[in-house]
């Protein structure tokens, strides 16, 4: 077995046996699962208690302007059916969670017309009541009385419905059917994007579908971040420990610094991939039931793993080299922060990336090797990225990986024998030229 593989194998074994690694690998899915389960349970009980209490908001129409026919018209075209259809697609174990978020569906209270404020007040099932005063047409004012304070948020859906009902009643009979439908139903929007050549492409305007596409990059970001953080963190820790307890000198008497660094990065990469594999296996069942809910572009299946591995190697190498600079684990970890931040920086610009997935910022970030892995994967999940951009971005990434490996090996060789005061960047640069 070559020495590089020996180093890689030891690094792999040492990492996967670490307590921290085992906790992260097996604990993370458990914690996430528990969290999801907890949310589902809460959602379920919230929904049920809302149903049971069947809250009633009363309306006392002293101005006599509300027309029941107008309400039907509003309800028919208000578009909540669309939302319910969407909810049907959601796997059952997640539905409670989602429903809880969409309070308009789960918590819309029953609106009931009543004759007088006194009747509403005396009915224990009534939480709150609106009064449309007799002079409403002149004053344009509605009053709300509620049993408990802080009711505003809860009754917002009722207020929205009531407003629409009042307007529909005022317009009832004035508008023809078609105008009325246009008035009350949400208007479908078909968005197009046009490139410099004038070709246009239909885009999903449905916000919900965009959110579905967003789930993939979001998950990718989290997995990428955690894997890079944990495994390159171990790499850095390992190097710093070996330096601290001088094992490094024995290793260097047997292998070259290049073999040592490369072996370590490979071993860590393997450990990181193992971790992800375990996560995917544990998440297999929920993931399969999520599949119809997620949206993939085929290109993602190719780009994501490539960028994942390249990004892994890039950051692993950097972390290994910079881990060698400190006197102890703590000092070395300060360097790690810099690169971790660089790795996830596109995430901070995600609002801009989502708005303009093919904009200038997106392009620039795709060509910078430190940010390209995340940026390109985020972009491919949001829009059609021109193939040349992906190819150029990959070439830049490969080239910089090649350079980084060479420079890191030098830095590593210098750093691992460095004890005492922390070197300045100028000194590091000089040594690297000398090494």
């Amino acid at each position, binding site marked *: *077995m070559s*020495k590089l593989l*020996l*180093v890689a194998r*030891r690094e792999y074994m*040492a990492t996967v046996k670490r307590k921290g690694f085992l906790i992260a690998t097996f604990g993370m899915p458990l914690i996430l699962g528990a969290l999801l389960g907890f949310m589902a349970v809460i959602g379920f009980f919230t929904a049920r208690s809302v149903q049971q209490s069947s809250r009633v908001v009363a309306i006392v129409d002293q101005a006599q302007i509300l027309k029941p026919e107008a309400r039907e018209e509003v309800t028919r075209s208000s578009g909540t059916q669309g939302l319910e259809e969407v909810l049907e697609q959601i796997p059952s174990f997640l539905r409670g969670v989602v429903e809880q978020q969409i309070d308009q569906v789960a918590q819309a209270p029953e609106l009931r017309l009543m004759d007088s404020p006194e009747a509403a007040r005396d009915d224990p099932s009534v939480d709150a009541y609106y009064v449309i005063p007799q002079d409403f047409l002149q004053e344009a004012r509605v009053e709300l009385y509620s049993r408990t304070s802080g009711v505003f948020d809860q009754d917002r859906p009722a207020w929205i419905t009531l407003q629409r009902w009042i307007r529909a009643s005022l317009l009832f009979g004035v508008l023809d059917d078609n105008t009325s439908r246009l008035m009350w139903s949400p208007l479908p929007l078909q968005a197009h994007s046009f490139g410099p050549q004038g070709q246009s492409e239909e885009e999903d305007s449905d916000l919900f579908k965009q959110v579905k596409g967003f789930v993939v990059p979001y998950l990718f970001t989290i997995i990428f971040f955690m894997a890079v953080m944990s495994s390159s963190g171990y790499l850095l820790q390992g190097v710093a420990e*070996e330096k601290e*307890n*001088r*094992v*490094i*000198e*024995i*290793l*260097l*008497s*047997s*292998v070259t610094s290049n073999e040592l660094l490369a072996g370590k990065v490979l071993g860590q990469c393997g450990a990181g991939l193992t971790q992800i594999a375990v996560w995917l296996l544990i998440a297999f069942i929920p993931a399969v039931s999520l599949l119809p809910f997620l949206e993939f572009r085929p290109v993602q299946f190719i780009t994501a793993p490539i960028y994942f591995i390249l990004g892994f190697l890039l950051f692993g190498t950097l972390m290994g080299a910079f881990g060698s600079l400190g006197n102890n684990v703590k000092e070395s970890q300060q360097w790690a922060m810099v690169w971790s931040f660089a790795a996830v920086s596109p995430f901070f610009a995600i609002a801009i990336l989502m708005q303009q997935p093919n904009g200038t910022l997106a392009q620039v970030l795709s060509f910078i090797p430190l940010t390209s892995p995340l940026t390109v994967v985020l972009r491919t999940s949001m829009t059609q990225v021109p193939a040349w951009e992906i190819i150029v971005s990959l070439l830049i990434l490969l080239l910089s990986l090649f350079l980084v490996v060479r420079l890191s090996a030098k830095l590593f060789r210098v750093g691992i*024998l460095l004890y005492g005061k922390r070197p300045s960047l100028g000194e590091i640069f000089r040594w690297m030229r000398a090494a």
Partner: protein
Amino acid sequence: MHISLHDIYKQFGDKMAVDGVSFEVQSGRLFGLLGPNGAGKTTLIRMLMDILQPDSGRILYDGRPLDVQLKDRITYLPEERGLYLKQKVRHVIEYFARLKGLSKSDARARMEWYLGKLEMSAAADQKVEELSKGNQQKIQLISVFVSAPDLVILDEPFSGLDPLNVRLCKSLLAEEKERGTTILLSTHQMSQVEELCDDLMMISQGVRVLYGPVREIIHQHSEPAVLITCRPALTNGLEGVERIVDHNSRQKVFLREGVKPSEFLGRLVRQGHEIEDFTRALYSLEEIFVHVAREANLLAAKDRDLAQQARGDLAQQAREVTL
């Protein structure tokens, strides 16, 4: 394995760590690298191990520069212990052995043999950090010899060992030497070199101050005197004798230049003296070192004084010019 170093220079910042050092280690010998802390021993060793590169100079192993095959035949025990603390003893030794190119089965068989030899078999499945300092040191020594190297470089190998274990390890060194292994032992404990080493080089402030076979060096640097107990006691005025002083219960006889101790002994016997004890009055390496180092310091101090004086003169001249 024969090593030769030619004119090695190594500078760190303004400090000359190794200042033009040359020496050779003959194959199969136990060579002592001596010097006080900060003298440049570890720097020399790191250059020998190709961990550092000399600024100039050549290092040859059996006549050629270090390469991958040679590296497998050399092992190294660094001064500050290098073991994976959180791993089992057997995994650490096996890993180091395999990095030197041993097969898995060879590594294991040889490891078991050495563990038994140093009475550490019971600790094989313990984690390194669970062992005492002395036992960790033994593991370190095993990992050095387990790969059957031709050259072993040991930096302060006996530190942290109790007298019993020092003895055990010394006998291990002797056995390995018997087997033909070349051993380079770096230490600041002069007595160990005196006891164990065939040859030595002493370095002080990056400069070679002593070099050669240990016996020769001691003889060279000792006074031309013998210690003697005899009846009747010696009196001044003997032929070939400079002077005689009492030395503990014995007499210390300083011989005139050119008089060999054996000649002097023969003369005493012929004169009918009954000799109970006769030995060369040798300095210990420690005494020699103190002497040599003091001379070196005096030289350095003289240099400083001269330099200061020169600066003073220049300043004086400068003042005169301005006047």
